[in-house]
């Protein structure tokens, strides 16, 4: 079980439509591993030179104007952005990179569908708020580094001493993050049902099973 309270510095990306190619550029998709992508998160914006899979953050020439290269944002755990975050390519590497960097939650007014699904498989919580709420959070975070506290059980983001926004997320998806559940295990509990379905399909739609090369 993970800590049901996420609390940490908020990094802001005041931009719509940040696509998964920006979150992790193509070059790093050549890895066959599921970990080790943190140094390449937002690579094109974070560094001035061109990177390769065998490099680390230390080897690179950094863009110090970029928020994740400034203190205290190098330790950010929460990302605040605008509309349609994670659109584009289905690459789960985008979530792996956010996770490996240390992000535990992303707050946006909307998300790309595939990215949104991928988040829950990797303990990164995507939180949807209204545009007005997002605007307000951008105002609060504009001048100095701020921490939010996200309570998973209460589904609430506490953005100052007293005020919070509540958010909506499917209970079962949240459970998967809190208890680090694996979908394959859950689904295989329904093995018999899948087999029964498959058998009836074999009879009704035989062409789907009649594939000669």
């Amino acid at each position, binding site marked *: 079980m993970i800590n049901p309270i996420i609390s940490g510095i908020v990094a802001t990306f*005041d*931009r*719509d*439509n940040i*696509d998964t*190619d*920006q979150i992790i*550029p*193509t*070059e790093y*998709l*050549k*890895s*066959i*591993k*599921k970990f080790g992508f943190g140094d390449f998160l937002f690579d*094109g914006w974070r560094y001035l030179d061109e990177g*390769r899979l*065998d490099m680390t953050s230390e080897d690179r020439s950094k863009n110090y104007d970029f928020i994740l290269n400034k203190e205290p944002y190098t330790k950010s755990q929460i990302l605040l952005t605008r*509309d*349609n975050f994670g*659109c*584009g*390519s*289905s*690459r*789960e*590497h985008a*979530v792996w990179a956010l996770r490996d960097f240390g992000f535990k939650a992303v707050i946006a007014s*909307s*998300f*790309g*569908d*595939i990215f949104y*699904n*991928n988040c829950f*498989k*990797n303990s990164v919580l995507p939180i949807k708020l209204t545009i007005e709420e997002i605007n307000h959070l951008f105002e609060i975070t504009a001048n100095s580094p701020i921490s939010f506290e996200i309570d998973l059980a209460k589904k609430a983001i506490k953005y100052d001493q007293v005020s919070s926004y509540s958010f909506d997320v*499917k*209970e*079962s998806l949240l459970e998967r993050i809190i208890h680090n559940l694996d*979908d*394959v295990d*859950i*689904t*295989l509990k*329904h093995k018999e*049902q*899948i087999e029964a379905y*498959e058998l009836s*399909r074999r009879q009704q*739609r*035989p*062409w*789907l*099973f*009649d*594939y*000669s*090369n």
Partner: protein
Amino acid sequence: MPVTLYDKLWDEHLVQTDENNESLIYIDRHYLHEVTSPQAFEGLRRKHLTPWRLDANVATPDHNVPTDRGNKFEAESIKDEVSKIQVVELDKNCNNFGIRQFDITSSKQGIVHVMGPELGYTLPGMTIVCGDSHTSTHGAFGCLAMGIGTSEVEHVLATQCLKITKLKNMQVNFHGQPRTGVTSKDIILHLIKLIGTAGGTGHAIEFSGSYTSLASMESRMTICNMAIEAGAKVGLVAVDSTTLDYVKQHSNLSDSMFDEASQYWKTLNSDRDANFDKVINIDVSEIKPQVTWGTSPEMTIDFDAKVPSQEDIDEVNLENLLLAKAYMGLEKSHTLQDLNFDKIFIGSCTNSRIEDLRAAANAVKGKRISKSIIEAIVVPGSGMVKAQAEEEGLDKIFIDAGFLWRDPGCSMCLGMNPDQLKPYERCASTSNRNFEGRQGNLGRTHLMSPLMAALTAINGKITDPS
């Protein structure tokens, strides 16, 4: 109650729905490629599982493969060590688990979304997934097809099911007849401009209307392919005689099996009074050729229109506009026709099929590419497309005009192989994403149809195709 095509496909494949409204949907076809599968196979191994149903899977390497490899090329010959590992790993995984693969030496290898339909692995009414967002392409066959992440690739391998919630229904009616020089690519880009890259989020888009019903399977595939650029995981076209003719030609089913299946396939359309959550009507006769100016597919304009400036735009979008113009080097340009291009890329799962190559070849026949173009490449989508094009002599037309004629793969669509833009190079591209760095670090991408890309090659600039 009348239902939509999406609803029908959903109901047909529903194994169960739990109390949280999450459903298990049975998957008929699973395409795999080298980039998003290694971690999924690793996951299977870790759990001591094997694929649920081997014959549902079809694999091919496409993203990493060099396109100047010629015959007698093996995975081991890939120069980029890291790319090589991925292609070799796919070989290993397919061999170990017994998955059918069209490997790098196969004459049928290609971009998975081009290869699947032409080999008859995509059949109407199927549920189809792949660890690739452009899986929406297969919706052109009345399939429920969508891109998935790597964890889901593992899940489908292990259980033959996908755990998802139902999408909403959206209908896009394309009516009328397009003007000369306007193709399915222009029509889908126009839609994306109109509704934005989040316009279809949470929806399955069914494309219909008189234009769509007259369109070829290849045009329908181009449209469904870019449904994801409109935010929709799923694009769909109802099954009709065009679909059946294509499938008859491409599948290996026996005549009797085909006839039996056709009876069912003919029911794969939305009922007349089916309810859609959103409906959009577009008269395609009003659409001009479209070209993207910015770094998101919604940043599209008519080829001869003014590039948006500060005055045209509301405050919220200003930041996006300025960043995109700066990245694209457009601070001083008023129209796209002012720009000088460096490279031309004709290819990708959007536009590398035989009809695309014919359209481009037709435009360059007997001409030479402009002296200002550094490199123009044509990358057929698959071995089959390549062979067909060569049989028709299209390769010769391209080569005579100064193009490079390559071997199949994703190529400069995302530059995972050596085909890349250098910083600040401007490219006329028939692919689907103009994101920052998509075709190479700091490269500048303008999306357009194969016809427009071919004309840009000849003139070095965007040209009126009519």
